[in-house]
C-alpha cells in the first residue's frame, strides 16, 4: 500500500478541477481516467468468474491498453442496455429527465474527496447517459456531440469501470435530487453492463463466489464457522463468567439469526457478535444460527440483480428447512437494503409456516415486517429496552464519548434512524451527534461501501471518507468523542482505518458491543473487562460477600 498523503495535502488536492472545460459542456468527454496503482480495484480472478458462470470471463488488467474485450462487445453492451431499459423504469426515467441542475454535485463523498468532476453524480450518470442518447434517442443520433451523445468505444468502457467503481451506491444524491434520480440505480446497472463483457473486481466477486459455496463471504466452512463462534464464546466466558453454547443449524427454533459473516471473523465485528450472543442468552431467546445461511451481507447487490437474488435466496430456504417462524437480522448496511427493498420481491412470498414476527420477550408484534418476517436487531433491542427487559449499567461505558454513524442503507433505504439511537442512549451516558448535514438521512458513506472496502485503493477510500472523517474529527475536537458506533459490518471494517487517518484515537464499535458491555447478565461475575478484554475504567464493584452484585446501577 502506498503511503497516504497528509490530511492537509489530501484536502488541498480534493478541491474541484475541471479539465478541458468548454461552453458546450462536453469537454469532459476528452479526458480519460488514469489507471495507476492505487487508483483501481484489482480485477476478479478468471476462475472465480468462470465458477460463477459470469458472462465472457477473460484475463485483463486495468493498466493494460487493451482490456481483451470479447468479440462483438459493442453489441453485447447495446443489447444489455436495451434489456435493462425495458426492465427498469428507474433507468429509462433517469436517462430521460435529468436537467443537470447540479444539486447533486457536492453531495457525493467521492466528488468532495477527489475533486474529480466525473464523480459528480450528474456527470457519473452522463457517462452512461451520453451512450444512451446516441443509441436510443433520435436527438442524440441526429445531433451527435452537440446533443451530448457519443458513440461507444473501449475508452468509455474503461471510464465506466473507473467511475462506477467510485460510487458506493449510498444514494445521498438521490435525497437531494429534485426528481429523485438515484445514482445507485445507474451504478448498479452500469456494473451489470461491465459484467456482461467480463469485467468485475476481485473484492466483490471473491466474496460472491465464497458466499455461494460456503454460505458466507469469507469462505468460512461450516465446521470452522462453528469453531470460531465457540472461540468467541470462550471470550465471553472470560469476561462474564457465563458459558454460552449457541445452537447451529438446529430445527424447530422460533428465530433464525443471520448477521454478516464479518462479525464472526474480524475485530471489531466479533465484539458485536459476542454482544448478540450475550443478549440472546440473557433473554432466553429461542434461536439458531445457520452455517448455510451464515452471511447477512450480499455482494450480489454490487454485481447484478440475479446474483443478489441467488445469494439472498438462502435466507428463506434455510428458514423453511429449519422451521423458523421469523428471521432476526444483525447489524449490517447493504444487507438491510437487500432485505428491506429487494428480498420479498425477489425471493418471497415467505415460506408458509413463517409468521409475523413477535418478540417472545415483550409480545410486541413487528407488524411492519409482516410480509418479509425479518426484524432488525436494533428494532428488537430497542423494544426490549423500552419494555425494561434488560438490566443495563450504562456507566460501564462512561469512559466513552460516543457518536453514531448512520450507515447509508439503513438510513436512506429503510429509515432506521431512531431505533439505534434509543438503544445507544440506554447503554451509554455520553452520546453526541455529528453535525446535522452528516447524519440521519443526510449521512455520509464511510467511503468504502458497495464492495470498495479493499486495501489496494486505500487513498481513494480515505478521500471518499473525507466528509465522514471531517465530521468525526469535528466532534472529536469539539466534544472529545472517542468512540464511533455503527450498525454495519462494512463500517466496522472500514471505519477503523478511516478514524486512524482522520481522527486518530477514535475507536469504532458496533451497537451491540456497547449493549453487551452495559448488559448485566444473570449470574455473571462482576465485570472488570469490556468485551475487548481491556480493563474497564469504571469496573463493577466486587461484592464482599453476597455474590449477587446489585444490578440496577443508576447514575
Amino acid at each position: 500500500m502506498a503511503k497516504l498523503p497528509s490530511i492537509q495535502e489530501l484536502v488541498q488536492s480534493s478541491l474541484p478541477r475541471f479539465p478541458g472545460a468548454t461552453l458546450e459542456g462536453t469537454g469532459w468527454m476528452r479526458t480519460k481516467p488514469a489507471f495507476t496503482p492505487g487508483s483501481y480495484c484489482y480485477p476478479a480472478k478468471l476462475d472465480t468468474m468462470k465458477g460463477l458462470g459470469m458472462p465472457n470471463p477473460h484475463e485483463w488488467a486495468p493498466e493494460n491498453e487493451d482490456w481483451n474485450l470479447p468479440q462483438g462487445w459493442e453489441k453485447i453492451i447495446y443489447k444489455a442496455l436495451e434489456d435493462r431499459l425495458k426492465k427498469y423504469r428507474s433507468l429509462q426515467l433517469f436517462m430521460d429527465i435529468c436537467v443537470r441542475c447540479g444539486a447533486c454535485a457536492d453531495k457525493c463523498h467521492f466528488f468532495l474527496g477527489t475533486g474529480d468532476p466525473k464523480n459528480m453524480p450528474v456527470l457519473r450518470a452522463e457517462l452512461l447517459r451520453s451512450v444512451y442518447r446516441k443509441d436510443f434517442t433520435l436527438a442524440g443520433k441526429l445531433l451527435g456531440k452537440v446533443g451530448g451523445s457519443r458513440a461507444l468505444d473501449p475508452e468509455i468502457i474503461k471510464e465506466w469501470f473507473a467511475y462506477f467503481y467510485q460510487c458506493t451506491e449510498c444514494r445521498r444524491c438521490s435525497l437531494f435530487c429534485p426528481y429523485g434520480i438515484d445514482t445507485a440505480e445507474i451504478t448498479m446497472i452500469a456494473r451489470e453492463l461491465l459484467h456482461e463483457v467480463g469485467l468485475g473486481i476481485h473484492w466483490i466477486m471473491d466474496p460472491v463466489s465464497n458466499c455461494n459455496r460456503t454460505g458466507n463471504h469469507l469462505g468460512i466452512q461450516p465446521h470452522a464457522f462453528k469453531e470460531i463462534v465457540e472461540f468467541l464464546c470462550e471470550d465471553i466466558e472470560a469476561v462474564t463468567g457465563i458459558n454460552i453454547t449457541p445452537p447451529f443449524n438446529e430445527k424447530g427454533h422460533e428465530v433464525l439469526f443471520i448477521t454478516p459473516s464479518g462479525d464472526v471473523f474480524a475485530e471489531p465485528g466479533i465484539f458485536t457478535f459476542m454482544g448478540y450472543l450475550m443478549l440472546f442468552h440473557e433473554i432466553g431467546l429461542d434461536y439458531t444460527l445457520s452455517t448455510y445461511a451464515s452471511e447477512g451481507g450480499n455482494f450480489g447487490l454490487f454485481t447484478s440483480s440475479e446474483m443478489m437474488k441467488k445469494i439472498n435466496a438462502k435466507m428463506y430456504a434455510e428458514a423453511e428447512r429449519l422451521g423458523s417462524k421469523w428471521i432476526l437480522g444483525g447489524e449490517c448496511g447493504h444487507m438491510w437494503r437487500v432485505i428491506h427493498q429487494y428480498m420479498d420481491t425477489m425471493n418471497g412470498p415467505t415460506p408458509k409456516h413463517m409468521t409475523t414476527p413477535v418478540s417472545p420477550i415483550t409480545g410486541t408484534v413487528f407488524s411492519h415486517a409482516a410480509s418479509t418476517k425479518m426484524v432488525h436487531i436494533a428494532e428488537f433491542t430497542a423494544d426490549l429496552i423500552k419494555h425494561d427487559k434488560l438490566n443495563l449499567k450504562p456507566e460501564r461505558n462512561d469512559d466513552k464519548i460516543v457518536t453514531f454513524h448512520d450507515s447509508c442503507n439503513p438510513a436512506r433505504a429503510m429509515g432506521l434512524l431512531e431505533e439505534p439511537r434509543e438503544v445507544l442512549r440506554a447503554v451509554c451516558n455520553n452520546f453526541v451527534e455529528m453535525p446535522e448535514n452528516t447524519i440521519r438521512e443526510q449521512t455520509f458513506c464511510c467511503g468504502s461501501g458497495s464492495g470498495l472496502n479493499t486495501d489496494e485503493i486505500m487513498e481513494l477510500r480515505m478521500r471518499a471518507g473525507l466528509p465522514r472523517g471531517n465530521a468525526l474529527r469535528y466532534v472529536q475536537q469539539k466534544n472529545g468523542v472517542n468512540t464511533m458506533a455503527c450498525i454495519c459490518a462494512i463500517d466496522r471494517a472500514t471505519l477503523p482505518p478511516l478514524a486512524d487517518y482522520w481522527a486518530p484515537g477514535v475507536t469504532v464499535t458496533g451497537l451491540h458491543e456497547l449493549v453487551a458491555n452495559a448488559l448485566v447478565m444473570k449470574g455473571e461475575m462482576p465485570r472488570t473487562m469490556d468485551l475487548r478484554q481491556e480493563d474497564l475504567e469504571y469496573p463493577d464493584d466486587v461484592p464482599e460477600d453476597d455474590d449477587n452484585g446489585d444490578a440496577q446501577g443508576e447514575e
Partner: protein
Amino acid sequence: MAFSLMAALGIGILAWALAALGLEMFVGFILPLTAFLVFLGGMIWRVTTWARVPVPFSIATTAGQQKSLPWIKPSHIDSPSTKIGVAARMGLEVLLFRSLFRNTAAQTINDEGGPKLVYWSSKWLWVFSLLFHYCFLMVFIRHFRFFLEPVPFFITWAEDLDGLMQIGVPRLYMSGAILLVAALFLLLRRLRDPKLRYISLPADYFPLFLVIGVALSGIMMRYWFKTDIASVKELIMGLVTLSPSIPEGVRGSVGGMFYTHIALVSALLIYLPFSKLAHSAGLLFSPTRNMPTNTREVRHVNPWNPPKKYRTYAEYEDDFRDAMAEAGLPLEKEPAPGLHEETAQ
C-alpha cells in the same frame, strides 16, 4: 452555448422574416397548431414509454424515520408508509420542490483545527426554480384571456393579483418580469458555477434561451412594441376554432414581435416532450419518490421476477458433510459409513 443561442435567436428572427414576407398564416396558424399537436402527442408518447417499463423493485429513498415500533414517531411524509403519505410527499415535491429545498453547498475552509469541510444551507436554486415555475404558470394562466370568450372571472383575478403593485400603464405583471429574472438567474448560474458550466450541454442552454426569448418578446409586446391585442385575440380565437384568419392589426412586419413570440412558444412546445423538459411529467414517475416505504409489510411484485436459482442446502451439505459431521453439526443425511460420528467439543 453559442449554438443554443443561435438556434433560439434564429427561430425568433425567422418568424419575423416569414411574417414580413406574407407567410403569417404559416407562423400564426399552421406552426402553433402543429406545435400543439406535437406537444400533446409527444407527451403522451413520452409518458407511455415510461409506463411500458415495469418498476421491478420498491426503491423509495427514505428521508426520515421509518414506521416500526409503535412509540417511535414515523416520518409520515418523508418516509411514507401509506398511500396518503406518498401523495403528500409527491404533492410537496411537485408544488414546493421539497427535495431541492434540502440543498446545501459544501465548502472547504481552513481554521486552527486544520482544513474543514462545511455545509451551508443553499436555497437560491430552490427560490429561483420555484419563482420560475410559478411565474410561468401565472403567465400561462393569464394568456387564457386570448383563448376564451367571455374571459372567466378567475383569469381576471389572476391578472389583478399579478398586477397588484399597479406599476405603470399597462400595469406591470410581476410574473413576466420575475420569470425573466429567474430564467436569467438559471442561465448565469450555469455560466458562473464551474461545476455547472462543465456539465451544461447545448440542450440545457437552448430551453433557457427559448424561455428568455418568449418572456422578452412578450414583455416587449406589452410595454414597448405594442401589439394590437384585439387583433391578437381575433387570431387566437380563430386558431382554437380552427377557422384561420389573420386580422389586419397583426399583418406583416407590424406583427413581427407577435410572430416571434408565437414561434418561440411553438418551439418550446415541440421541444418539451423530447427533451429534459419532460421532467415535468417524469417527476410523477420517479420510483424513489412515489413508492411507499412499507416494503417489509407489503410485498412488491416484480413482473419479470426470474426463477430462483441458488445453491441449495442439500448441495451445500453434500459438499461439507464429513466436516460437518465431525464438527457435530446436525445433518439431513448421515455421512457415508467409514467416518465415525463424534460430537466435537
